[in-house]
């Protein structure tokens, strides 16, 4: 029994006299308070000033214009970058020192071991060799577009090339710098990456094959990766590092082709993986601009969001600094000493925070238990909760259902609208991007809003006129029997399910055999017939007109109920005063059923903003976008698995609904005729 205390329940004896409650050990509490305050102050001090702050990542916008496709280091502080607008840019210490245009689209780039020659492969079958000053030395041709190339220690170059896309006509070849082949070998589908370890030429292709070719061009081993590798490099031991399109990095044994370890680094595809000889580490970068550093045993020891755009190329490390180039042309320098220190610091901070929280919890508990008044109320609350058991059991199923099916989606919806949630890329927080896109870049949305407003205005007119007229006429009928049967008769058409009602109207508008066109023909107005729903000029009006004469049964009954609830003496008084029916309608009826009018207005509003099933059935939003509404657009976005964007549209519509709802509840709370 939630309202009564059971007989066996012990009664807590806690109530210290009120006058005493502040007298007990005030000094002890003062010390406690002082400790707490200094503790808080120390914390604030620590987090604002004592905590070391360091600029771990430095970025310079080094390469202007175009996106960086590839970059290689020439010596310690020079970088040669290739941009998407076909230029070579030579950067020294973060600033441009030279640039030359290239006449072909270079797809892959590498440099000889002594940094004296640069080798590039084009999509046009050419392999071009430049000297370090970017003067072209020579070029030769291979039999297809070059997808990847690597220069070996012995100044030969391993090239992946082939014809078409997903054709199976791809080769790996090893050539000297004059263009004489050592071997060429057909390896199947498009080659993503090549690597070279002494006399082994290693390739990875789009179907996930990884293989190693000996100097005779025959397979030494071949294997299959889980996902196709996109990038490869070779370590000092000659083992192969690979990175795939699902954020995984592998170390592959060069002798056998077996995977030594693999490590999932990211949800995004990897855009770069490289071995750094100086530090004996592996560096990787993903599509999202994150940079990773791994030990040779595959242990990730540093990661950071280094850029807004994919990390395209890793250059090298110099002492404790790591240099990389992102695809939007940023020259990125990461101070690894500081970075690792900062990472340690972060771990310390977390520990600090947790111990803080625990201390605060302990302090609050002690305070509650030592101060009699607080202790009393704590016990009181605990007892109340215990006594409310029955009530909690009764509401529990409903509350759990509401929590799961109402609150959880609400919170999810609010969150999703600020993310890029879809099935194509990993979920990511993108701030207001969805809203900016909806409100400024999405033409469909505003077409939809226009239609929605039109539907709203006409919907209000429809629900305030005909149902009210019918309710008035029925209410003032003099014969009770007729009155009853009229009421029933008006309900009968609504036995047709909503979807069927809409389908019937779709049938009425049918251009070939629709009732509307047939009636027009029968009346000799054949020239007026048209495809009402397929004509952009009439489609939205056809949707509005559907349901004629719009005797909404819900509105009708609510109005009728309002009229029935009016005290009859008021009508009698009006009749004695000789008021005409017209006057009575305006002065009494309308005023007395104002709450009902407001209710219907509100429901019409909710319906107009949120309903689009009828439009989906009739036109699917067409022809073109003639009958689009934002709700329908949201539905289509869900069907296209664009959940983030759909949530943002839902959020905007919900805001509109919410504003009106709050306004309505404030309005209806005013002292009125209720």
């Amino acid at each position, binding site marked *: 029994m*939630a309202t009564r205390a059971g007989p066996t329940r012990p009664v807590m004896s806690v109530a210290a006299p009120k006058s005493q409650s502040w007298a007990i050990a005030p000094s002890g509490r003062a010390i406690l308070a002082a400790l707490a305050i200094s503790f808080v102050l120390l914390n604030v001090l620590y987090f604002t000033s004592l905590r070391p702050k360091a600029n771990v990542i430095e970025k310079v916008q080094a390469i202007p214009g175009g996106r960086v496709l590839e970059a290689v280091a020439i010596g310690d502080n020079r970088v040669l970058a290739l941009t998407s607008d076909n230029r070579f840019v030579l950067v020294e210490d973060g600033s441009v020192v030279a640039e030359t245009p290239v006449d072909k689209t270079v797809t892959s780039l590498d440099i000889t071991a002594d940094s004296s020659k640069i080798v590039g492969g084009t999509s046009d079958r050419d392999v071009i060799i430049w000297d370090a000053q970017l003067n072209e030395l020579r070029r030769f041709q291979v039999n297809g577009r070059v997808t990847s190339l690597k220069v070996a220690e012995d100044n030969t170059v391993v090239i992946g090339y082939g014809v078409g896309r997903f054709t199976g006509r791809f080769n790996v070849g090893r050539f000297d710098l004059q263009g004489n082949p050592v071997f060429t070998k057909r390896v199947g589908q498009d080659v993503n990456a090549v690597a070279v370890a002494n006399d082994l030429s290693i390739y990875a292709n789009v179907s996930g094959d990884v293989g190693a070719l000996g100097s005779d061009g025959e397979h030494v081993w071949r294997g299959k990766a889980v996902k196709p590798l996109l990038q490869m490099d070779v370590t000092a031991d000659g083992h192969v590092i690979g990175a795939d399109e699902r954020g995984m990095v592998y170390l592959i044994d060069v002798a056998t082709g077996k995977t030594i370890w693999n490590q999932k680094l990211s949800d995004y595809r990897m855009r770069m993986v490289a071995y750094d000889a100086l530090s004996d580490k592996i560096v990787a970068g993903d599509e999202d601009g994150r940079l990773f550093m791994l030990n040779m045993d595959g242990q990730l020891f540093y990661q950071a969001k280094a850029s807004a755009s994919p990390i395209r190329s890793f250059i090298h490390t110099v002492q404790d600094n790591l240099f990389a180039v992102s695809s939007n042309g940023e020259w990125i320098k990461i101070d690894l000493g500081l970075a690792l220190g900062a990472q340690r610091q972060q771990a310390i901070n977390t520990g600090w925070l947790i111990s803080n929280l625990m201390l605060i919890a302990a302090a609050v508990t002690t305070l509650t238990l030592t101060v009699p008044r607080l202790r009393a109320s704590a016990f009181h609350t605990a007892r109340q909760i215990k006594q*409310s058991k029955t009530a909690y059991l*009764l509401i529990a199923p409903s509350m759990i259902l509401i929590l799961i099916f109402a609150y959880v989606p609400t919170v999810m919806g609010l969150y999703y609208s600020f993310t890029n949630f879809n099935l194509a890329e990993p979920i990511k927080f993108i701030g207001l991007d969805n809203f900016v896109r909806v409100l400024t870049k999405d033409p469909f949305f505003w077409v939809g809003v226009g239609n929605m407003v039109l539907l709203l205005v006409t919907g209000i007119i429809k629900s305030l006129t005909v149902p009210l007229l019918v309710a008035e006429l029925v209410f003032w009928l003099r014969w009770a029997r007729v009155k009853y049967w009229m009421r029933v008769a008006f*309900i*009968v058409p609504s036995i047709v*399910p909503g979807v*069927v009602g809409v389908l019937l109207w779709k049938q009425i508008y049918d251009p070939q055999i629709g009732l509307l066109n047939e009636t027009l023909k029968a009346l000799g107005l054949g020239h007026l017939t048209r495809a009402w729903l397929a004509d952009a000029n009439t489609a939205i009006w056809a949707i509005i007109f559907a349901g004629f004469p719009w005797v909404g049964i819900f509105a009708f009954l609510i109005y009728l109920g309002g009229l029935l609830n009016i005290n009859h003496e008021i009508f009698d008084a009006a009749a004695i005063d000789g008021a005409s029916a017209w006057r009575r309608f305006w002065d009494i009826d309308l005023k007395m059923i104002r709450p009902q009018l407001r209710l219907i207005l509100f429901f019409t509003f909710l319906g107009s903003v949120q309903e689009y099933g009828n439009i989906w059935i009739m036109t699917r939003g067409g022809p073109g976008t003639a009958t689009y509404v934002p709700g329908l657009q949201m539905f289509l976005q869900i069907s296209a698995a664009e959940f983030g964007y759909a949530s943002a549209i839902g959020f905007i519509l919900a805001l509109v609904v919410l504003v009106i709802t709050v306004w309505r509840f404030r309005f209806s709370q005013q002292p009125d005729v209720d």
Partner: protein
Amino acid sequence: MTKRANLTSSLSVLALLAILFFSFVPVIMMVTMSLKDSILIYGDFWAPPIPPMWSNYNRALLDLLAPAARTITMAAVSIVGITFFSCLAAYAFARLKFFGKEFLFYLVIFIFLVPGVLTLTPSFVLANTLGLRNSLPGLTLFYIGGGQVFAIFILRAFFQSQPEEIFESARLDGASELRSVFAIAVPLARPILVTLAIMNFLAIYNDLIWPLLMLPSPENRTLTIALQAYQPLNERLPGRPDLGVITAGYVFASIPILMVFAFGMKYYIEGLTSGAIKS
């Protein structure tokens, strides 16, 4: 005076009959078409359905019986779930004193302010995550969850209006709270419960968008999904919809609602006109 009033009333009846006629146009069209051979519909649109072609109904029944049974079962289970749980909760909120009552009730009505457009997308994702998608029990669970708030809100108001003395005397007689709910509160609330059941039935029976998202595979189709995609083939009408059978399907789909109204119309009209569901 009376004569004039009679005249006005007669004119009112005439006006009402005119409006009534237009309201019935789609229904009349549906019924006549459903009794005609589709070849006759295409040949002479205005021809009367003589002799009536009942085989249209055989065909429609064959195609739509399964989705209709599915929908009605789902709606029935949902309604039982909604009213059962919300009765318990509404009773507690209306009759019992307990710690955190105000807060918890605000928690219930606050969610009223959240419109369906906001939760549609995340509900879809949630259904996917919980493995409730493409399953009728899953959809039912969503309906039960979604129906709670409104039902609790309405029922609490009704339970509060019941006189406290009945419950007090029941307690003195040693009745448990659970017995009080089902022996006293619920029977007294029958009109409002029937109204709630009808409203929920109409909402679930007519729902299209949410089942479309929830039930992608054909073997789970609800009646609305089946109806909007209903294109029975007829080799005598190459490339044209068999309108007779389609409209027979529409008539068939209207029968459950007709039955619900026949059974509960009294309560429904009472519920809506009594002002219980007002602001």
